[in-house]
């Protein structure tokens, strides 16, 4: 309902989304030398997902996917060095010569951060799911008593079948 009552909110959230994505990406890459990092980037993405959910643009879905992908990526980056006899979580620093950007220094820490991003996003989505935020976008604020109806019609996430 919110989105229908207030097209301004909806439009603003839509307009902000790409900007937030770019800022999040920047935070992720800049994290090594500037303020930022995986946790911050994940929270930025999470914030935009919350806003989009409240505005009814998208539904909080696929939390398990985000969580598992993040967990696997972070886990692999953590364990991989042990295959080469290095200690757990030892990081590899690589310097690439990329056209236009020049020398770019990066490392396995970036991959690890990517895992962190996915996990933070997954956490935010699962929180929204836990608060049953999806129905906010559909129908706006409702008292609890009305909840039962939505469960019975199976509108929340299909798990009721």
């Amino acid at each position: 309902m919110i989105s229908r009552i207030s097209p301004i909110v909806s439009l603003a959230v839509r307009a902000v989304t790409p900007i937030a994505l770019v800022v999040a990406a920047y935070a992720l890459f800049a994290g090594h030398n500037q303020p930022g990092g995986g946790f911050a980037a994940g929270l930025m993405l999470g914030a935009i997902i919350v806003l989009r959910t409240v505005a009814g643009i998208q539904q909080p879905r696929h939390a398990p996917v985000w969580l598992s992908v993040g967990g696997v990526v972070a886990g692999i980056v953590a364990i991989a060095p042990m295959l080469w006899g290095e200690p757990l979580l030892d990081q590899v620093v690589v310097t690439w010569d990329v056209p236009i950007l020049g020398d770019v220094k990066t490392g396995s820490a970036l991959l690890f951060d990517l895992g962190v991003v996915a996990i933070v996003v997954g956490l935010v989505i699962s929180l929204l799911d836990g608060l049953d935020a999806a129905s906010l976008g559909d129908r706006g604020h409702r008292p609890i008593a009305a909840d039962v109806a939505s469960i019975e019609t199976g509108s929340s996430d299909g798990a009721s079948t």
Partner: protein
Amino acid sequence: MIWFLLAFHVVVVAALPTVGARIGRRALWLAATPMAATALWSITRLGSSEVITAGFQWVPGLDVAFEFRVDAMASLLSVLVSGIGALVCVYSVGYFSSSAASMGRFAATLVAFSTAMVGLVWADSVWTLFIFWELTSVTSFLLVGFKHSDPVARIAARRALFITAAGGLSLLAGFVLFVDAASTARLSEITPISGSTATAAAILILVAAATKSAQFPFHVWLPGAMAAPTPISAYLHSATMVKAGVILVAVIAPAFQDTDVWKPLGLSFGLATMVWGGIGALRHVDAKLILAWGTVSQLGFLFALLAIGTPKATFAAISVLVAHAVFKAALFMVVGEVDARTGTRNINELSGLRSAMPITFAVAVISGASMAGVPPLLGFPTKEAAIEAAIGLSGTERLVVAGLIIFGSILTVAYTTRLLIGMFAADGPMPDRTVAPRRRAMSAPQVILAAASVAGFVAIGWVTGVVRSAAVTVAPDAEVYSLYRWPGLTDAFITSAVIVAIGLVVGVLLTRRHVASGPVARGAANVDRGIDGTGRLAQRVAGRVQHGSLPLYLATTVIVVCAAAVPFAGEIDTATLYWWDNRVEAVVAVMIVAVALAATQVRSRLGAALVLGAVGFSVAGLFVANGAPDLVLTQLLVETVVVVGFVVGLGRLATKFPSPTRLWVVGRVLIAGAMGTAVAVALAGSAASPTGEAPVRELAETAQTEGGGKNVVNVILTDTRALDTLGEVIVLMVVAVGILTLSTRRNRTDLPVPAGETSAGLALVETGRVEEVPQ
């Protein structure tokens, strides 16, 4: 070879559940292969003085190793364990109907048990022994409860697990003390130890062995375990698992000979069990229960012999152990066959099976006679050796030990007679039953075991050699003893003749005395009540502690934090405290306090959420003042998400807080004040005593050289202390999975939701009072 055989077992265990579903009863033949292989290998090594070891360091720092050592003793025991195991598998082929379901599960559990048992007898390190000991408890639980749809079997399995697992804990404690006192974990390197630690270890280990070997008063689980299918009883509760305690006592006894408690405690367990088990066997009418109580009695006999501790008694104990495994397994198989072919095991309902089941009858008579200690069977010379060892003692000891062993032996003869006459003699009430046709797979193993009882007597010299070489591994002086086919008219022989004579008379007299039903198992009922009571108590405690009221949880947390902060109060050094680093901090601090106070006064929930957000943003201002951009960024983002999250969540609640009662306000002020004070005290206290130099410089350097980044904070997060980050990330995942699980459950209306967990419950607990939910 050790690894190969163990791996063979494990592979078969892994394969059986899937393969077994397809090949049905034939899975049992597959199950028999690893056991047969182990038995054959062990037979070739019988009596050999060569020792084979295998093992690896498991936890090098703690000197915990995974070690096996196959000597003469281990070979002898694994012949019994695996040989009888293989025979039981063959027997099961005949015992179960071809349509019996879940044969794969049965066979797999049986082999798993066999693996555990073989590992137990081969173990050299006490830690290895402990692991396999526990595995036998677990697999035995699964086997006793095999008929899991039957509540009797379930309760019996639970009781068996409860008692043996409690013994396992005792064993673990005993081993820890033992290793501490003996400064070795290897059973082969045992030397006598003494002192208070050794005494404690001796008691704990003896109790553990007593639980496993069903010694009085821990024996109550064994008769109940007869709820298992008979092949399992034949295997676990005659030949193998219940022997584990006896074996443990045998191998570890040399360490405790010098402690004061070992012998009296062991003798008390053993003699009490022997007599009580014999009496129990005479009170029951179910043939299988008679055998079960008889087993209890025999285990007590073994326990007592080993506790005596003389080389002669140890030698006798090992020979009795061998003879008992052979005849008791055969007798259980006999009872199983009688049960399978007539449909009852009640000796009051059975009679005259001699003509209907001639082969079974022959096996029963041979094995029963061996149990009673009658020549020309293996049971005779072994019992002879035992009685000789008992009457060879002196003084009061001789009076008590020999007296009770003789009494127990009379009971043994009596219940054997009663069992045999009850089932096979034609004098009783004729059963109005048809006897099903014989199955070869059931007969063959019994015949083999009965033949072994005879062959053991014929080849007494070979048996002596095998038993002796096993006995010397624990009692080097046992070298001189032998088993005799015909000992001459010694005291022991005359004693046994008297025992058999009296026992026969008593047995015949008691046979047809009509007993309506078996005695009530009071001990078992008490154990069950204890287990149920523990469960109920746990439920009540959990109900009290996990009351479901969020304010009370929070209050509990705060009180604990405050208590933890108390020690810091003494550490505070006012000289190290100062007001601020720069003035901006003071301004921000005032702002934080003001906004926080405002948060307590806001009446609408949405407003409170926003003001709380303002507190968070003000704290970010504090970080700005201290020049920590990373913290600022993270703080702002977290606050943003939290505030928006609040807005989402508040949609479910009334817009305004309920008006609080006075007590409620006072309570909250107190709790909040206490928490604030505690944190301030702890911080001030820790600031007063810094330890060493701050690691800032070092971290900044390693960030550049090793992490390759200029942002020290983030390099710490992703490189220097990445393990912490990994741990935090895992916590986040766990939280997320928890939330998902809860929300999935809420959305499934078909699941019963416990009181206090409904979404309405949130509103209910929030203020500790019932809140009107607007309809």
